[in-house]
């Protein structure tokens, strides 16, 4: 594999993003069999990936490159897709977005067997990256290109260690393998087996070799080139190298530069940036920050870059403050920098609701208790907002209250422990079609679409129903088709969409119909989110969906805390959801992760009154494991989330490995549903023993 550095580190001998892109174009133009399947993008279902896919698609469209975008939900799906891809003869470029960094791509299990004219580009923000993907050279390795953000330069140690262990016979490499993620593990084993096969001259046997002593003549030629060097590394060296590699993989998972940020850099190199691409890059970055994948400092680092870009690309604003938050003219599509409050969707909700539903406020004030809610109202009252005012949707609040909101918050909120309530972010105008939308709100809407646009019943509040408005009876069922039916009246076949769905169900029998529906719902969600990126009306109509999603999360979270359902183990906390009104909703890993994050934030400084033994740090924010029952599938979806010490900080997520360990030790039947290794699906019968094994894990 080759990893390509970002342009600032590039030089004549080290091509960077621009050259890689030019190669894609060249391959597209010169191959005679070019068709729509020549360039395929496999996209993971998260906001950052969707934005990156859209940006890349726009760049391709401008260059007249025919391409295809295929959403892929998880590793299993990726394997299935790989099978299908072997049949495409005209494929010459494969781009993986936000997936695949941890996979050993040159191995035969993945892309080692594909034809040599295929290049695989990996644009992934998750770390750690697979060392073979990064460092393996040779004809096989050169085809895989990982777009890196500069962090790999610092992996010199790991590189030396990897090369040493790779090209020298080493009997102890097994230790590295057992700690890797499941797919990575099997691939690494295959590779190491090959290398170890010819060490019969080595006098130190390996008792741990799984395949026994295979004396195949494999990799002879590599050995011949090594003859000049000592054939056997000292044990100390070997141990050192393997411990370095071990450390690289077992530190946990974290995230690097967002995929959309990477593509924005590419666009800058090509000198084709414009407001749309910048906005999408901002969305990707904000998504990473909001879901606590990156820390506040990293966010600031990228933010300052985008801040400069915004000023470069957009005309300067008139100085008066009120025009900053509205569109100046109908064609105004500009992006503006603004200070964003940490309240969830506060411009679209009542102020009280926005504060109630933001996890930051929740933790400081203890929202789930009645006492906490009173404190919240007290805070608002102190700031001079009367109760009826705070129950009004934000757009109906008094103008002067809105203007002074920020200053009042800064004055009064520190009394309640709410500091750092705002962070700098951006908002975008959409002409006169709609109010300017902030980046955080857009990210919330898109991730709501990705998670729950279809496939689960969601009730959405209609504005005006609260407090017995005109329309009695809470909400309306959110229906993807119905929401957008107004726009596409002519495209609905006679009989409506319901008929089509029924037909699909009856085609392949009950089971297949359900499976196909299951496959379809996340694809539909993906395309719904993709469309919403360019269509402001669709994006806006997804905001109520996001709001009801948050409501459900708070409801569930508060009930969990109220019922004291959290069991605290030595190293983490566990919650198991087996019943409740929203169970179907929480069996989706995305929603479940959000619940876990909310719990982590809410309980950050609490429930640690139980004295942990003094050897660990006194104030510890314990990681959370949340499991939810999926009745239909008869399994539990388990999500592990690490909490950091302070708000805005991030810790590496070690659950991927912990889960793997526990699974191996208790032989549970599991499945990795998504690309995130900290999400796992366990068979219903095995959940108890799995959780116990996880709890008694000595290493973790």
């Amino acid at each position, binding site marked *: 594999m080759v990893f390509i550095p970002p342009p600032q580190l590039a030089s004549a001998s080290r091509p960077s993003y621009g050259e890689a892109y030019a190669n894609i174009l060249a391959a597209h133009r010169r191959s005679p069999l070019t068709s729509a399947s020549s360039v395929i993008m496999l996209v993971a279902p998260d906001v950052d990936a969707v934005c990156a896919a859209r940006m890349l698609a726009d760049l391709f*469209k*401008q*260059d*007249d490159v025919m391409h295809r975008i295929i959403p892929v939900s998880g590793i299993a799906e990726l394997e299935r897709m790989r099978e299908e891809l072997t049949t495409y003869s005209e494929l010459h470029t494969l781009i993986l977005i936000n997936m695949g960094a941890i996979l050993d791509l040159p191995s035969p299990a993945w892309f080692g067997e594909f034809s040599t004219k295929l290049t695989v580009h990996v644009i992934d923000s998750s770390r750690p990256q697979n060392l073979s993907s990064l460092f393996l050279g040779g004809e096989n390795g050169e085809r895989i290109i990982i777009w890196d953000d500069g962090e790999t330069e610092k992996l010199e140690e790991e590189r030396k260690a990897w090369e040493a262990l790779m090209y020298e016979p080493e009997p102890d490499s097994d230790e590295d393998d057992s700690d890797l993620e499941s797919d990575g593990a099997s691939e690494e084993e295959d590779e190491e087996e090959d290398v170890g096969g010819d060490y019969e001259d080595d006098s130190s046997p390996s008792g741990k070799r799984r395949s026994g002593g295979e004396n195949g003549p494999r990799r002879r030629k590599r050995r011949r080139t090594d003859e000049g060097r000592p054939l056997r590394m000292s044990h100390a060296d070997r141990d050192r190298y393997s411990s370095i590699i071990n450390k690289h993989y077992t530190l946990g998972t974290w995230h690097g530069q967002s995929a959309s940020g990477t593509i924005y850099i590419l666009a800058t190199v090509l000198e*084709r940036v*414009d407001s749309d691409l910048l906005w999408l890059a901002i969305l990707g970055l904000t998504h990473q920050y909001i879901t606590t994948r990156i820390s506040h400092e990293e966010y600031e680092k990228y933010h300052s870059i985008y801040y400069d870009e915004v000023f470069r690309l957009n005309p300067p604003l008139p100085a008066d403050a009120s025009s900053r938050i509205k569109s100046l*003219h*109908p*064609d105004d599509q500009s992006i503006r920098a603004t200070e964003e409050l940490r309240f969830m969707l506060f411009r679209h909700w009542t102020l009280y609701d926005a504060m109630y539903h933001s996890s930051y406020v929740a933790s400081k004030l203890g929202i789930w208790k009645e006492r906490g809610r009173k404190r919240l109202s007290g805070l608002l009252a102190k700031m001079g907002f009367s109760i009826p005012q705070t129950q009004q949707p934000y757009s109906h609040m008094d103008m002067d209250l809105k203007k002074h909101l920020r200053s009042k918050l800064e004055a009064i909120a520190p009394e309640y422990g709410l500091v750092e309530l705002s962070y700098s972010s951006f908002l975008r105008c959409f002409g006169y079609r709609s109010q300017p939308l902030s980046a955080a709100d857009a990210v919330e809407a898109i991730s709501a679409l990705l998670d729950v646009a279809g496939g689960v019943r969601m009730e959405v509040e209609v504005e005006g129903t609260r407090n017995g408005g005109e329309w009695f009876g809470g909400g309306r069922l959110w229906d993807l088709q119905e929401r957008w039916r107004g726009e596409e009246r002519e495209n609905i076949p006679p009989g409506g969409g319901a008929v089509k769905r029924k037909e699909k169900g009856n085609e392949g029998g009950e089971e297949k119909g359900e499976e196909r529906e299951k496959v379809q719902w996340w694809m539909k969600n993906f395309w719904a989110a993709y469309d919403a990126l360019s269509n402001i009306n669709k994006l806006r109509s997804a905001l109520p969906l996001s709001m009801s999603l948050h409501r459900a999360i708070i409801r569930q979270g508060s009930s969990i805390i109220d019922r004291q359902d959290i069991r605290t183990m030595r190293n983490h906390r566990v919650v198991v959801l087996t019943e409740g009104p929203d169970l179907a909703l929480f069996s989706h890993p995305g929603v479940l992760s959000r619940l876990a994050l909310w719990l982590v934030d809410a309980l950050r400084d609490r429930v640690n009154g139980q004295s942990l033994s003094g050897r660990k740090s006194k104030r510890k924010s314990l990681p959370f494991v949340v499991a939810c029952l999926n009745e239909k599938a008869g399994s539990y979806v388990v999500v592990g989330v690490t909490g950091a010490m302070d708000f805005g900080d991030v810790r590496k997520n070690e659950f991927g490995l912990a889960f793997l360990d526990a699974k191996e030790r208790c032989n549970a039947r599991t499945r990795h549903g998504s690309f995130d290794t900290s999400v796992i699906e366990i068979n219903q019968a095995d959940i108890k023993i799995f959780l116990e094994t996880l709890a008694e894990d000595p290493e973790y």
Partner: protein
Amino acid sequence: MALSVSLRSSVTPPELELVASEQLIEIIPLISMDKTAFISGAYGPLRPPAKCKLPIWMATNLKLKKKCHIVPPAWLNVDFLQDRLTRETSQPEFCAMPFRFAEIAKIILDVASDDVENPDKIRSLLKDLREARQAKSREGITKLDHSELSLPNLCSMEINEIRPFFIRSMGVLTQLTRDPAAAGDA
């Protein structure tokens, strides 16, 4: 324009737009291109930043791919349109406008509104012009004659709008004037 039943059999506005796209317009290219032969003729070479004349269909294609800037034609600015509007509202005849101004203005405002100065003012002026001319067309219906109809300075879209109606009504009027004359003779 909302299409009534009578118009659905005639040329539609998008088709008129396509026909109008053949006209040449000036662009500032951002890429280089040699003189290339297309079906309708040879265009180019494109040497930034020198201006060049291309058909509108090609200009919009390049603009959408961000490879050029479109230079609005001389009549697409606030002063010119304002002047025509005042003339339109003060005189009973139609004032002279480029024949396909509606289609070309629409294309340019859709694709390249950032290249046009003050696009929303221009949009509102165009709207006012259309309404003024439409009012005059409506008046003209009352003066319908069976034999001749002379409407100087009427533009492509407007002609297309009134054509089906006027043709049929003139046909009917011809019949009416012929028959009474025949009846009168007989």
